[in-house]
């Protein structure tokens, strides 16, 4: 089983291919061109690095968000079309699970915080359980102040990870039991996506391309902009 993982829900664009043997090849561009321009050539390149042809892919995994809408949709459209074109199933993984994943060996509470722009964060909490991480509660949108209050309320040692944690570092740094994870872990990685998707693929937790549900967490702010525009 070979999984193609596509991750473009944040400022970065990533692509990885892997399976039972772990990750065979991965690429990520942090300062490349915009997502739509970069992603397909990056998939082509990663296939070459892994020395496989695209029809050897048996599952397409994708980051379903939350994240930056435009990049997220480029990833979703690309992944769904690829899975449809290959007639293979998909696995959707949310971006907060992805940024928490590399911290799975810590015993501390993990807070994943992805920059949601407009002064807000996409957040979720995780704790270690045998075999991995378990999410505590549902992903949510909150302000840095809300996150601060939530962290205070837990009263336990906590590791905060994600580009949202970096952006609001000043507000979080003063807290005694809170540490911010290394910058190198701030973005969801395509390799983590393939690893997480592999575990789910073994349990056959597949969906069809038409069943992938993006996680936006915010409604489109339509009314305000449209009702008040001039004739």
């Amino acid at each position, binding site marked *: 089983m070979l999984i193609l993982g596509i991750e473009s829900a944040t400022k970065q664009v990533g692509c990885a291919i892997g399976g039972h043997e772990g990750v065979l090849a991965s690429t990520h561009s942090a300062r490349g061109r915009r997502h*739509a321009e970069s992603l*397909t050539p990056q998939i082509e390149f990663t296939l070459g690095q892994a020395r496989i042809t695209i029809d050897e892919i048996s599952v397409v995994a994708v980051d379903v968000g939350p994240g930056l809408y435009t990049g997220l949709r480029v990833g979703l459209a690309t992944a769904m*079309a690829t899975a449809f074109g290959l007639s293979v199933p998909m696995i959707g993984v949310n971006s907060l699970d992805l940024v928490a994943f590399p911290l799975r060996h810590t015993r501390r509470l993990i807070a994943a915080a992805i920059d949601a722009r407009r002064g807000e964060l996409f957040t979720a909490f995780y704790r270690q359980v045998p075999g991995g991480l378990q999410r505590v509660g549902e992903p949510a949108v909150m302000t840095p102040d809300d996150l601060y209050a939530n962290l205070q309320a837990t009263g336990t040692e906590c590791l905060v990870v994600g580009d949202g944690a970096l952006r609001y570092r000043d507000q979080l740094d003063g807290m005694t039991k809170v540490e911010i994870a290394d910058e190198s872990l701030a973005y969801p990685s395509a390799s983590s996506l393939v690893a997480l998707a592999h575990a789910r693929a073994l349990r056959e937790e597949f969906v069809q391309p038409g069943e992938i549900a993006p996680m936006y967490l915010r409604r489109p702010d339509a009314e305000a902009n449209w009702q008040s525009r001039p004739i």
Partner: protein
Amino acid sequence: MNGETAILGIETSCDETAAAVLTGGDTVLSSVVSSQVDLHARYGGVVPEIASRAHTGLITPVIAQALVEAGRRGPDLSAIAATYGPGLVGSLLVGVSAAKALALTWGVPFIGVNHLEGHLYAGLLEEPDLEFPLIVLLVSGGHTMLVEMQGHGRYRLIGQTVDDAAGEAFDKVARYLDLGYPGGPIIDELATQGDPTSITFPRPMLNDGYDFSFSGLKTAVITYVRSNPDVSAEDVAASFQAAVVDVLLTKAQRAAEEVGATAICLAGGVAANSELRERTLDLALTTGFRAYVPSRSMCTDNAAMIAAAAHWRMQSDGPSKLDLGANPGLRLPFVNA
């Protein structure tokens, strides 16, 4: 495949998710259009974020349906084409991303298509024996232009709107009169019950070059209704529509005479307007021009026209690269003479 090209076209520039399969440049095997108009109606216009989300959900089912109806397999296609501009950037990206992924997956060429070029080819797709030079009146919610089509890929801009697009004027007048959205079909319907000569609205810039201006006409309608609150909406709709059509066709006819065109062809969503269609056909009876009025479904946004434009672009320019992105402000490549 009989050596004949089969192109999958994809269109997501605004609020229609569309896919079509076209063979030989003029045979439509399938054309699927999923309209989001109901999603946007309560906002009185297309809401970009709502459109992008809807496209994301609809894109693969719409493509799948177009292939099934055409009875074609992806890997047997000659090319996959998608609109890459102009349009709403978030919407465009969904179609472009899906098209590039399918091209990579099936190992077939990808072609990025200019949406406006697609509209220009809609008439030729249905009427392949139309001859150049051709005057195309391209009127939609976002565009109003008079184009001389000199040959495949050779276009000269004769005139365009200096303010609102014709379709935009329809939407805004409908919104002012509280008629709902989209304005074009509503005013079209209402106008059939009204008297187009009852109110004399201005014909902006009628004898003045080839450019259009609809903002003043819209203001005139609003001013008139404000000072005559009891006027019948039917009469306003009919009179407003008559003014728009007068201006459009007067200029199109003059342009056709000037360039010695063989025919006048309508294109774009506003070309679905009944009055414009009838008056264009009338024009052909009273002048020496042929008039071509594409079917309504070919005037509004669809993917068959995108595949048709791709058919010619493939021959002249070859495929696009897989690093092509969306270009929301893309223009037609006009020649100067």
